[in-house]
């Protein structure tokens, strides 16, 4: 418990640094949100900047922002008038979170069994064929796999809608793309880790004392071998985040990834800040969750705290 508390407290300075860094970067973006094809009259622009507090010195703006942030207020959106950044993100985050979770689940459900299967018969076709595929999965970026899947399953076979959002069937292509990309490194990691563990003394002891082979494999070896895999879930989530930028634009999914990219293009400083903070916080929590899961699996880690 004390450990969790310490980790949570540690997140505060990290998030502050992220806020400050993103704040100055976002404000350094050339071109303001009110620069349009037809320039606004100077007074109107001044009034708008005053309204959004953009006329104050940057450190003051940052201070105000952090104070508001502590109260859960991410400020007003500039490109969506009348909406707060919190509302804009709130309307999108569910889409991205559900897509991300389904993809991550899919990745684990495909990646881990494939890795186990490959490690159970090393250097046979059961190992070589799936591992060849995972290598392809690592080298084919999401923005190549996505269009290819769409080309096959929606344009070629007509089974799935090529883009859009709303019903469960729209989930399939984006989630499959993200899931398959993430499953590949998971499978390789599971295989490598199992190969290492299975030659350890304690596994041999278990086998020698007559534990049934399947029990040795799944209870003794796999539990230990999954540790690096669980640790990898944190970085994997980060990969899903960046993957979602591309996948959401490709498949026309109204999620946070697309929100971030449009915010950048629109120079919507508040929205850029808001999305970055939400992403950073989410990833920090996911990493903490991965570490806790690791401790639950491995008493050695738990005791070393």
């Amino acid at each position: 418990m004390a450990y969790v508390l310490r980790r949570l407290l540690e997140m505060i300075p990290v998030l502050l640094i992220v806020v400050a860094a993103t704040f100055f970067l976002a404000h350094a973006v050339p071109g303001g949100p009110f620069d349009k094809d037809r320039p606004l009259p100077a007074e109107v622009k001044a009034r708008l900047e005053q309204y959004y507090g953009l006329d104050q010195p940057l450190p003051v703006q940052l201070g105000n922002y952090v104070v508001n942030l502590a109260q859960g207020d991410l400020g007003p959106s500039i490109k969506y008038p009348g909406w707060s950044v919190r509302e804009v993100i709130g309307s999108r985050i569910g889409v991205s979170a559900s897509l991300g979770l389904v993809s991550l689940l899919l990745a684990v459900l495909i990646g881990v069994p494939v890795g186990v299967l490959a490690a159970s018969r090393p250097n046979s076709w059961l190992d070589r064929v799936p591992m060849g595929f995972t290598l392809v999965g690592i080298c084919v970026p999401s923005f190549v796999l996505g269009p290819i899947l769409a080309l096959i399953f929606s344009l070629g076979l007509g089974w799935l809608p090529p883009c859009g959002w709303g019903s469960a069937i729209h989930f399939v292509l984006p989630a499959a793309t993200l899931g398959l990309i993430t499953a590949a490194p998971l499978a390789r990691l599971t295989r490598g880790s199992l190969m290492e563990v299975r030659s350890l003394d304690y596994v041999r002891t278990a086998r020698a004392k007559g534990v049934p082979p399947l029990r040795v494999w799944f209870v003794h070896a796999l539990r230990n071998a999954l540790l690096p895999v669980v640790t990898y879930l944190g970085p994997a989530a980060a990969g899903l985040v960046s993957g979602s930028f591309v996948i959401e634009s490709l498949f026309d999914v109204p999620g946070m990834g697309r929100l971030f990219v449009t915010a950048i293009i629109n120079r919507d400083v508040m929205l850029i800040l808001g999305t970055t903070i939400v992403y950073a916080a989410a990833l920090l929590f996911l990493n903490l969750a991965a570490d806790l899961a690791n401790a639950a699996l491995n008493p050695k880690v738990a005791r070393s705290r």
Partner: protein
Amino acid sequence: MSEPVVESLASESGWQRFRKDRAAVWSGWFLVTIAAVCFLSPLIAPYPYMAQDLAHSAEAPSLAHWLGTDLLGRDVLSRLLQGGMISLFVGLIATAVALAVGICYGVLAAEVGGRAEDALMRFVDIVSTLPLTLIVILCTVVFGQNMPMIFLAVGGVSWLTMARIIRNQTRELKASQFVQAAESLGQSRWGIFSRHYLPNLAGTIAVCATLTVPGVMLLEAFVSFLGLGVKAPMTSWGLMIKEGADIMEECPWLLISPSVVFALTLLSLNFLGDGLRDAFDPRSSRK
């Protein structure tokens, strides 16, 4: 006396081991070929990469245009070579940036030791959990979409793993007898760094670098794909894939050729990196 204690026998057999790894050797040759063709593209490309020929726009592959033409009638093969030059260039330079930062940071952390070392490594841990792609995108927007900025931004977020590995290796070296001997004979820190650490880290660095290049190239492709990287009329593989994906229904060849070349290049880099690691990394070769 201060000769680097590289095991010359071991490194010789390292090359022999490497040569036996057929996948790695073929990948190496493939990469050399691709790099040569791309970097010579101003001389050997069949057409100038930005020459438009609207009379022959969006044509499927033919004898005149081996890989077809794009919507503006530009030759896809010529653009593929020019884009490859940019992608490989980014891959190499950004990796060099990442290497320089990673080596300095890793060695420094191992050298200072104690609490400062813990703090430095904790910092790496924390930063590597952050959404770095966002930072790269922000940087390219803030500092303009010029090439040096892309190198710096991409390299600037890719050094973390490198720093971690280098620090672990340096710690081992620092505790080794020959370094302690050099220290007791009064060799300067710089001397130890340049004559003992660097030669012994060389293998690790080479492997790390090879395995960093694909990640870096992916990141560049990613940023270009979102329209925030390389700017027209120049192109890169990521940008070509983006343009191809937009009109894949009508002109699939615009998507297929850059995707295939890009994926093959990444695949080769991975094979090469794995081969080098198996051959030269003391830990994996002595298994």
